[in-house]
């Protein structure tokens, strides 16, 4: 459900009224599962940056950016697919002027870590690379997506069929301009809300509930992940690939026999459209790992969760560390080439998948679909129940 232009303006007015902030209408709010901790310094920084970004937008852009917190269709509107196959909603990078882009980067810089922001920008560069080299994408074509000024009314620049109805797709489009920002609920220190930022191969779903912030579910990866861009070599997931290979290399034959499920890589299991499914762990349980192997497992986890700001990543990692002996590591594919196999970490508060595409029988993929979920808290449902 899209918030109407009138309502958006009203919400915005409320949001930027110092005396009455946090007074969003009931339809945009969720019910807390339990009293939650009041906003801490990190959340205050995030909320302030979000409000500054929204304040920099035109009325039409704000209208296009804001959705009710209980908008289930918008919440799930993320994918690894490019625009055209998926018609995202929100305001695109291409529609933003330099000031607005700076405000958005401030916001993303508050939600994410410097490494997370770097990864996000490299993802956008990768899609720009695909726009410049259409034969390189797996669809073998597609056009560049351009930024266009948003009119006071009318469809977003992505165009095409609206999501949610199972309609036919629009034309394929690639490029950095086609990364969308949207909000479910208004940025608030006292009520739940969510920031969505994403496009092809990227979905950051950041739910903020008082002091608590989670980015689950998040989709990362990219294509290409290893490329030259503006004279510089880029390798988007280098740190994570290195940590995973260090862990698999550290296992003895018996451990490896348990961890390696199959010599062939598999596809993502808990990708988009698979919310709320509780995957059974398999592979090697960490209680059968030596201390240095557990440390490697944690380093691998930190490489993924470390895209989030240090304060909130620390909270997530603390829970994972407390449950490390109930955490499992599974591997599908060859163990000889870093980056060429699917792997999965499964624990009480984490499912982390790394899924190279098109490498079932070996080789290093330049095309990744990766997921990070918290089976107890995707979209912050442990803190605020979804309507």
């Amino acid at each position, binding site marked *: 459900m899209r918030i109407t232009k009138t309502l958006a303006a009203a919400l915005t007015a409320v949001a930027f009224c110092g005396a009455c902030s946090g007074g969003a209408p009931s339809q945009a709010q969720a019910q807390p*599962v*339990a009293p*939650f*901790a009041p906003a*801490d310094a990190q959340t205050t920084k995030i909320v302030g940056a979000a409000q500054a970004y929204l304040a920099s937008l035109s009325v039409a852009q704000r209208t296009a950016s804001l959705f009710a917190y209980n908008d*289930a269709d918008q919440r*799930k*509107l993320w*994918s*690894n*697919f490019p625009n055209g*196959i*998926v018609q995202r909603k929100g305001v695109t990078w291409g529609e933003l002027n330099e000031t607005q882009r700076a405000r958005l980067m401030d916001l993303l810089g508050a939600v994410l870590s410097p490494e997370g922001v770097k990864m996000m920008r490299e993802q956008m560069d990768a899609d720009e690379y695909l726009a410049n080299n259409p034969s390189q994408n*797996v*669809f*073998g074509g597609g056009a560049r997506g351009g930024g266009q000024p948003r009119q006071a009314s009318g469809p977003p620049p992505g165009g095409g069929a609206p*999501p*949610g*109805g*199972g*309609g*036919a*797709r629009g034309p394929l489009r690639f490029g950095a301009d086609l990364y969308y920002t949207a909000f479910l609920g208004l940025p608030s220190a006292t009520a739940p809300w969510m920031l969505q930022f994403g496009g092809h191969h990227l979905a950051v779903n950041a739910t903020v509930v008082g*002091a*608590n912030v989670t980015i689950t579910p998040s989709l990362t990866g990219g294509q290409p992940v290893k490329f030259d861009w503006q004279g510089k070599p880029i390798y988007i997931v280098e740190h994570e690939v290195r940590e995973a290979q260090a862990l698999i290399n550290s296992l003895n034959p018996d451990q490896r026999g348990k961890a390696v499920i*199959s*010599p*062939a890589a*598999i*596809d*993502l*299991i808990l*990708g*988009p*459209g*698979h*919310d*709320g*499914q*509780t*995957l*059974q762990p*398999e592979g090697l349980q960490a209680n059968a790992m030596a201390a240095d192997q557990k440390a490697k497992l944690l380093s691998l986890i930190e490489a993924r969760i470390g895209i989030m700001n240090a304060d*909130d990543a620390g909270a997530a990692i603390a*829970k994972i560390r407390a449950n490390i002996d109930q955490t499992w590591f599974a591997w599908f594919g060859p163990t000889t080439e870093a980056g060429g196999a699917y792997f999965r970490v499964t624990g009480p*508060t984490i499912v982390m998948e790394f899924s190279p*595409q098109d490498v*079932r029988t070996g080789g290093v993929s330049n095309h990744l*679909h990766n997921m990070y979920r*918290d*089976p*107890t*808290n*995707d*979209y912050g*449902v*442990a*803190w605020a*129940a*979804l309507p």
Partner: protein
Amino acid sequence: MKLAATVLAAALAAAAPNDAHAHPLDEVVQGSYLTLAPGQVTLQLDISSGAQVADSVLRRLDADNDGQISSDEAKAFGRFVLDQTDLTLDDRPAAWRLERVEAPPYQNIRDGADTIKIHAVARRSDRTGFHTLTFENRYNPAKTQAAANVFLRPGRWRYHVGGQTHGADGRRLAVYYETAR
């Protein structure tokens, strides 16, 4: 200090539109999601065909070749695929009952840009103790990448999965589990 998470994630069962997440051009990707639930096992079988092999799926799905997927065609396709799966529960063959088929628009499938979802259910005993489940998906319209995995929806029962084995090609899954109240 961040508040500790204590509540299980709510089920968000409805799938997002266009949620296929793999797009190799020359493969049919099949993901089997088997869920142990009280008194039953459910199956969600996702079929995502790459653009180069989409015809191998569409020939059967769009039986009258009119470029549209009717409800009857979708159901017939679902039954056809289910007939090429084998399910055993405690070493006895079990039958799937087709619940529904989510078939995206013809052109989306043709372009390798969407997923067909077959939903089925089979009755299962919830006697306390140890049990086995085996599943095999033999549907093979073209070069296929397959995976099968087990999920839990325990309700008033408790399930403990003691072991899983996968076939090397991803088509077979065996699950050893225990049920308790």
